[in-house]
Structures are given as structure tokens and as C-alpha cells.
């Protein structure tokens, strides 16, 4: 028998009072133990979906089940299973991090003694213990975000939802946050992540859903998605760009400036061909890199394709 999915979203819909249709009947499944990326441009419906899962937003159709528990019908039981790290700071900045964590546990009915032990544990793990008894308003932006992760861990959730937790956080803190969340995931907690740093999603997540305009435009494993990338763009730093460029098969090479070349390599064409052609033209490559993150290339293409398809359909209908 297969295990109960961590999350089943079934034909979920949300139309706000002003008529905006934020979710147009989306469905997806997240397996237990997964590290799942939920991506989409601004206004795509990600935060609405997370709002419904955490009961901050009332759905207007469909349902979501967290480990088999319906958010609509058994809200309180479902909420016991999740931890939420929201996009915006949402704690009382005049309270102390230790109190914020202990109170959060209290709202879940966790006895104070246990809550105090957990608060110490998670504040230490997120390197906030030395700030535990200072007012939260004195914390830096990165510290406030780590505090929200510590707070979300107080009920030791089976499903942790992180809504753009690293927005505006420097690279060092971001990495330490991912180290912590990866550890939590390795220990068995299912993690759903939304982020605009696609490199992060590519590195951390095993499965992915892309939302745009309230519909799912892609829902697959990260490996399968990246395998769809049929063209990859590389940037070469070279000693000197000659007047005439080589034209190896399946590779479009173009000059950016006198020391930079850009190559669009179609899938199935080896880079060796390009290097051989460059050597034949006495072009020495000093270094090379991907122009953009691979997932980013795909993401932009999927979202654009979806919009172009919709525009074409509307034109046809008209």
C-alpha cells in the first residue's frame, strides 16, 4: 500500500471578493518526505495556495488534504500537521525570540516545559540563541527570517511550507538556512518551497510545480523538467574574438564583445565539437559558464509559452 500523500490539492479554486480569480481549479500531489518546489511569477497564485493550505485564505471550491486530513472539513487537525514560514514578517517585534517561539508552541497546546526546550533547540540550530532574550525588532532581516523558521518548527510539523524564506537574505545566511532545511527534510519532514531564486530550487528540490495565472503549467520531477531543456546557452571568455566565427553543427555562436562569445548548444550536440572548432580558429578559451541557471531558462520558456498559447487561443476565439 502506498503511503498517504503529504499533500493532495484537488481542483482548488479561489475567487476574491473583487472578482480576481487567483486559482482556477489546480490539482497536485506531494509525496511524504519530498522537497517540493512551487514556482511561478509574481501574482501567479502561489501565496493564495499557501494561504489556503494554512487556512489564512478561504477557498471557493475544491479541497486540500494534508496527510489525508481535509483543510476544509478538519481544519484544526490539519493545522497540527503543518508549519508555515510566511513571506512577510508576522510576529510582534516587541516580543523576544524565545517568547515568540514558546508562545507559538502554546497555541498548539504544547506544554510550556517542552516548548522551552524546543525553543532553545531551534534557536540554537538557527544560530539565534545569543539573541533569544532581546526584542525581536533589534534583529537583522536575515535573523528575523531565521526566527520565523524556528517558530514554524515549534510544533515539529510533518509538512513545512516556506514562502520565499530567503528573499533579501545574504548568500551566507541563505546557505545556512538551506543547510538547516535540508537537514529537516533528510530527517523526514516534507518541505514545500516557493522562491524566486531558481538556482536554489534546482539544487534543493526533487519535484516541482509551476503555477501561472492560477493554473499549473508544469508538474513533474526536477530531473524530467531539466531534461526538457533543448537548448543551453554558454558564455565563453576568450583571449580574442576573430572577425569570422566558426559554425559547428547544432551550435549557434555569436560575438558579444571582443573578448566574449555566446554559444547556444542544441540538445544532443557535444561541446567537444565547439572546442575543436574554436581551436581551429585559434580562439583560446579562458573560462566558460552557463548564461543563466538551467531551471531559469526553462521557467521563463514555460511561462512565456503558456501566455503566448493563451493569447493565440484568445485571438483565434475572437
Amino acid at each position, binding site marked *: 500500500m502506498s503511503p498517504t500523500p503529504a499533500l493532495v490539492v484537488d481542483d482548488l479554486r479561489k475567487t476574491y471578493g473583487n472578482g480576481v480569480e487567483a486559482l482556477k481549479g489546480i490539482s497536485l500531489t506531494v509525496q511524504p518526505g519530498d522537497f517540493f518546489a512551487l514556482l511561478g511569477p509574481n501574482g501567479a497564485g502561489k501565496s493564495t495556495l499557501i494561504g489556503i493550505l494554512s487556512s489564512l485564505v478561504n477557498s471557493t471550491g475544491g479541497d486540500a488534504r494534508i496527510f489525508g486530513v481535509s483543510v476544509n472539513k478538519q481544519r*484544526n487537525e490539519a*493545522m497540527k500537521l*503543518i508549519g508555515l514560514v510566511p513571506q512577510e514578517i*508576522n*510576529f510582534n517585534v516587541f516580543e523576544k525570540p524565545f517568547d515568540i517561539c514558546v*508562545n507559538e508552541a*502554546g*497555541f498548539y*497546546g504544547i506544554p510550556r516545559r517542552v516548548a522551552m526546550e524546543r525553543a532553545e533547540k531551534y534557536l540554537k540550530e538557527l544560530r539565534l540563541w545569543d539573541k533569544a532574550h532581546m526584542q525581536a525588532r533589534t534583529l537583522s532581516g536575515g535573523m528575523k527570517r531565521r526566527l520565523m523558521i524556528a517558530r514554524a518548527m515549534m510544533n515539529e510539523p510533518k509538512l513545512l511550507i516556506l514562502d520565499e524564506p530567503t528573499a533579501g537574505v545574504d548568500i551566507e545566511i541563505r546557505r545556512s538556512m538551506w543547510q538547516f532545511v535540508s537537514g529537516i527534510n533528510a530527517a523526514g519532514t516534507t518541505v514545500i518551497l516557493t522562491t524566486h531564486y531558481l538556482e536554489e530550487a534546482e539544487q534543493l528540490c526533487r519535484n516541482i510545480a509551476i503555477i501561472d495565472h492560477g493554473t499549473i503549467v508544469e508538474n513533474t520531477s526536477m530531473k524530467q523538467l531539466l531534461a526538457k531543456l533543448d537548448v543551453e546557452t554558454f558564455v565563453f571568455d576568450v583571449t580574442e574574438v576573430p572577425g569570422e566565427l566558426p559554425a559547428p553543427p547544432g551550435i549557434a555562436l555569436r560575438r558579444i564583445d571582443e573578448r566574449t562569445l555566446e554559444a547556444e548548444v542544441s540538445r544532443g550536440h557535444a561541446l567537444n565539437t565547439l572546442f575543436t572548432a574554436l581551436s581551429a580558429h585559434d580562439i583560446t578559451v579562458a573560462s566558460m559558464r552557463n548564461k543563466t541557471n538551467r531551471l531559469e531558462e526553462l521557467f521563463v520558456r514555460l511561462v512565456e509559452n503558456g501566455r503566448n498559447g493563451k493569447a493565440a487561443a484568445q485571438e483565434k476565439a475572437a
Partner: protein
Amino acid sequence: MSAAENAVALGTIVRRELVRILRIWSQTLLPPAITMTLYFVIFGKLIGSRIGQMHGFTYMQYIVPGLVMMSIITNSYGNISSSFFGAKFSRAVEEMLVSPMPNWVMLLGYVLGAVARGVIVGAVVLLIALLFTSLHVAHPLITIASVVLGAAVFSLAGFVNAVFAKKFDDIALVPTFVLTPLTYLGGVFYSVDLLGEPWRSLTLINPILYMVNAFRFGVLGVSDVGVGTAFVVMLAFVAGLSAVALHLLKRGTGLRS
């Protein structure tokens, strides 16, 4: 959640409210002490000495229960409206909204916190009053019950106000334009028997009149209205406002999208 878990959640909110009240004591406890001292000096000592007796008590003794109840009402209301609206404004209320805590636990926690502030302020004002006059509590149980119920009524009203409020001005409007006039016209400073018709009958629709008089009966043993009626009115308000508050929480009015 189990009964034990609900008790923990309830205790968490009450404890947090008490910590807040004591942390900002200069905003929560000091102002009513100063204001009421001025009332006692001006109305009780200076003007009261020229008014003479009312229902067999000195004017100072007569207004003490009213002023204590006025402090309890305004502070209970102010506590819950500012605390809950503050949590809404800073979005810290989401900590509770995403938790498995039932709505009634959240409501009861905030109400108990507000009642606690009302009781603390009431005790402070009563102690100050004892510097000006002597009092003997006639009916201790009625005194305590009227304090708790009066504070609960206005805590619930403050909660409803905070749920609907969209900006800080919205929580200041009701105390200024509703609460203060009703309090002053609710028999704090005078016996309604002094009023002619139709003012006397009109005063009887003011709920604060019943709270002030229930408390006055508890302390002095005299009242302008029947004590039983006063308790029925207070209980009806508690039941009605609780139902409204729970309905708003269930719908998520002003809290959930």
C-alpha cells in the same frame, strides 16, 4: 485539540496579555490611576462636599463604585481592542490563525486578558479611593460578579470593534463617541432618580447603568435598578456579544481572505 491542549493554548494567550499589560504599565495602569485621582479630588472632595448626601452616603462614597466601574469598562475595552487590533495590524494574529487552536479558545484568552486588566485597574482605583473615603463592601459576591461580568461585556465589545477595525482610528472612535457618553450618562455621578421623564426612561436603555448599579449595590448596598435585572442584562450582553464574536471568527471577517 484535547481539553489539556486547549488549556495550554488559553494559558498562553492570557499569560501573553498579562505580560503585555505589565510591560507597558505606564500606558495601561498609570493613566487611569492619575485620572481617577483627579476625579476624586475635584468631584468627590471639592464639589462633592457641597452636594451633600445621596442615598444615605456622602457624594464621594456614592461616586466611588461608579468611577471604579468606569475604569474597569474603559480599560477592558481598550485592552482588547488595542491588543487584538495591534496583532491584526502587525499580522502577528496569523500565529494564532494558522494554529489548531479553536476560535473560542482565542476569544476566551483575549477576554480573560482584558478582564484581568479591568480587575487590576479597578483594584488600583479602589485603593486610591480609600485614601479619600472609607468604604465597607456590602455584598462581596455581587461586587466580584458585577466586576467580572461588566468587564467581560466590554471586552467582547472591544473584540468585535477590533475585528472590524481597519486602522487605529477605528478603535478610537467607539470609546470617544459611544463609550464615554454612555458611561457619563450611566449613573456614575448621579442617581437616575434625580432625572425627570423622559430622560429617566431613556437612561434605562443604557447598559452601563446596570453595570454601575450592580457594582454599587455590591459595594454600598443601594441601586437605582433591580440587581437581578442588572445581572440578566449583563448576561444577555455577554451571550449576545460572544455569539457575534464567534460568528465573526468563524467567517474570518477582517482576518482571513
